[in-house]
């Protein structure tokens, strides 16, 4: 069979396809996004769709599973919190067609708001759990996840981490094999979670987990590598790779592929073969808790902290094994290179306008590209917690400021995709509460942060088909808010955007601003702006640095003059032009 290099995410999609999956849904989120993007490559065989949030994705997949098809929902770790509601109850119902939940955790917070360890969800929600260590296992485990889900009538959690999702290694390709066809059949006692049924299903799910625990003892997904009888390492997922790299053949291993339910018998067998047990795991002491619960002595989290991402060097240092690595230290310091809003980004205009009213408002942000406006030089908001909270935290915060006679107005900021995800729910609460807030939808017509995924506002879906776009404006109007309290403005147009913010600041009650301009990196935007850029007349420039205040990465200042240092990325948005008092900046290459 042909072996090709695939990322873990690609391999998961391939495994799902080979397993005969028919429906797949997800909300984009790093490091999980590419699973669905790759699933859509098989659109002739699989219905692959972005859902507006992880709960909906789970429920779409669940509906397909109940209907008899193999289905999965993929999400980043924090998305599983959103999907928790259907997951906890669908765990009781079990499946018809196999159903897999994929959680992509992000140890080290590479692009996340926390580093929660979703392995705890498996015992908590009563899910079977598999943890692959590389791309080949991503594919193999995905197939096994569907098989186990059907054989044991359990929801199966495939738990990945950033390094598994985004590392590429060789994967043997297989063929698509369709499972035995299952029809939808009405099963009220199994799929309707009324108390009377739920109580009975709870008994059944516990029995099924017990059966899987028995099976787990012999599953090829768990394996021992006995090299000697001194030290035995218990590990799973990517941590196995780090341990293997750090210790080589100097220790023995129990590599666990099924990490819930854990086979007590297997762990005890392994413990009997070695003198000392080491637990190597990234994140929390999840395996360690079970090992200790069996009354076994082990070394784990006291050596390897639960924070951050592991690598072999860290594992070696923690357990004091192997050579210590030597490196170089330079005296020169590398200046920070934080990610910034792109040249021509509409959010830059929004934040610049917001800053003009800094002392009159308190801003709450959310999750998306616009979170880049939180740092220097805009310091655009003080608070950001989770998807959708940008529109609900302001309700409570406004009450607090009111009590303290603080007259500042609370602004909430979130993007179009976040609006569809859960922001709309919060908007309804805000309108209904009549709180003194201004809610701003930073609508750039795409889910930008994760790399341009379609959402309910776009005219095409993941599979490239034309779909009816949902109007954010009409959804806002549907709350019954007075139309004069809804303002649409182009964020690059400072006069319009500042006027909108001023109105909201100076008047009591709920306001909604739609800051509307498409992402500068959208293909059609790049095409429309081809050849257009700003130019600075060095003779006219007086070196006042006003243009530098917009913090555009295309602009630089040297020898007392501003200049366009990166003309290739300047799209001539003209925000800097509006700052210049002496008319030194002009737009060239087209009428705009």
């Amino acid at each position, binding site marked *: 069979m042909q072996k090709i290099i695939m990322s873990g995410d690609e391999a998961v999609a391939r495994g799902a396809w080979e397993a005969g999956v028919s429906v797949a849904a997800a909300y984009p989120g790093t490091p999980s996004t590419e699973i669905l993007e790759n699933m859509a490559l098989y659109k002739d065989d699989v219905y692959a769709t972005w859902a507006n949030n992880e709960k909906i994705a789970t429920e779409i997949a669940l509906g397909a599973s109940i209907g008899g098809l193999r289905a999965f929902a993929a999400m980043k770790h924090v998305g599983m919190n959103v999907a928790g509601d259907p997951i906890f109850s669908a765990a009781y119902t079990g499946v018809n067609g196999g159903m897999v939940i994929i959680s992509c955790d992000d140890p080290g917070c590479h692009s996340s708001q926390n580093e929660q360890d979703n392995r705890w969800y498996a015992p908590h929600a009563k899910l079977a759990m598999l943890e692959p260590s590389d791309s080949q296992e991503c594919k193999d485990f995905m197939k096994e996840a569907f098989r186990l889900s059907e054989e044991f009538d359990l929801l199966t959690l495939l738990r990945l981490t950033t390094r598994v999702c985004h590392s590429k290694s060789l994967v043997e390709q297989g063929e698509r094999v369709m499972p035995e066809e299952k029809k939808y059949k009405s099963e009220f006692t199994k799929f309707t979670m009324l108390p009377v049924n739920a109580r009975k299903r709870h008994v059944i799910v516990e029995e099924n987990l017990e059966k899987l625990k028995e099976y787990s003892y012999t599953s090829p997904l768990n394996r021992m590598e006995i090299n000697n009888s001194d030290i035995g390492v218990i590990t799973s997922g990517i941590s196995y790779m780090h341990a293997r790299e750090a210790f080589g053949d100097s220790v023995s291993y129990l590599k666990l592929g099924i990490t819930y339910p854990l086979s007590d018998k297997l762990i005890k067998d392994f413990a009997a073969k070695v003198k000392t047990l080491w637990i190597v795991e990234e994140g929390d002491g999840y395996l360690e808790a079970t090992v200790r619960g069996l009354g076994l002595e082990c070394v784990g989290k006291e050596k390897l902290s639960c924070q951050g991402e592991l690598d072999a060097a860290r594992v070696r240092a923690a357990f004091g094994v192997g050579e210590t690595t030597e490196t170089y230290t*330079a005296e020169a310091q590398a200046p920070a290179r934080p990610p910034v809003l792109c040249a021509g980004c509409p959010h830059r205009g929004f934040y610049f306008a917001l800053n003009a009213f800094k002392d009159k408002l308190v801003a709450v942000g959310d999750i998306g590209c616009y979170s880049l406006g939180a740092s220097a030089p805009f310091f655009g908001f003080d608070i950001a917690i989770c998807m959708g909270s940008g529109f609900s935290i302001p309700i409570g915060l406004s009450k607090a400021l009111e009590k303290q006679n603080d007259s500042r107005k609370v602004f909430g900021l979130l993007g179009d995709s976040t609006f569809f995800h859960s922001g709309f729910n919060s908007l309804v609460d805000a309108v209904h509460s009549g709180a003194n807030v201004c809610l701003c939808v930073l609508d750039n017509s795409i889910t930008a942060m994760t790399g341009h995924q379609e959402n309910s506002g776009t005219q095409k879906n993941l599979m490239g088909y034309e779909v009816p776009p949902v109007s954010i404006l009409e959804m806002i109007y549907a709350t019954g808010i007075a139309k004069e309290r809804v303002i649409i403005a182009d964020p690059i147009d400072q006069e319009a955007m500042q006027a909108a913010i001023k109105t909201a600041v100076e008047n009591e009650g709920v306001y909604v601003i739609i800051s509307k301009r498409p992402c500068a990196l959208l293909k059609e935007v790049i095409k429309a702006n081809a050849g257009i850029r700003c130019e600075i007349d060095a003779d006219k420039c007086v070196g006042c640095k006003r243009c530098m205040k917009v913090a555009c990465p295309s602009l630089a200042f040297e020898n007392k003059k501003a200049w366009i*240092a990166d003309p290739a990325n300047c799209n001539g948005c003209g925000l800097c032009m509006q700052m210049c008092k002496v008319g030194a900046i002009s737009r060239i290459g087209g009428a705009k």
Partner: protein
Amino acid sequence: MTTNILLTGVGGQGTILTTKILSTALAQLGYDVKMSEIHGMSQRGGTVNTQLKYGEKVYAPNIGEGEADIIVAFEKVEALRALPYLKKGGSIVMDEREIYSMPVLTGDAAYPHDAEKELKELVGKVTVIPASKIAEELGSIKAQNICLLGALVKQLGLNETDWEKLISESVPAKTIDINLAAFKRGYEYAE
């Protein structure tokens, strides 16, 4: 034993594609290969690292501090930032290009223009290539990555691969000629 290569640059410079082409070549040569990247926020001007490990058998996909044999820096200061990952005795291949980050542009931080000198004194094995300049001369600065790839391939001695074919299959059709020329110039430039 594995050979560990850390490629570092600024979002948009094409470190990921470079690593992918190299990985494919190494896999074709029969090596076990793992490549690791972190993306998500990197399109927006931040530092991008991709890591490549190859050998008979590779376990961990990522490179820890002091574990890289070679650092390939697409920008000068990124070589400096990645230095803690270089093992004693390792080498650096770098472009002389300077790309100023936002704190430098706004005057909040200084760019260490003499970093190259210090790196040469400290590490010794430093190959500096004007890859961006070469790519620009050839017609597109975007071919910088393939120029650096040429230099890296020379250093690694990977002469059994049909690079012309592999590069042609990996880059956009319109840019094949420029990229092939950039590869050749990078290869010839390297020691």
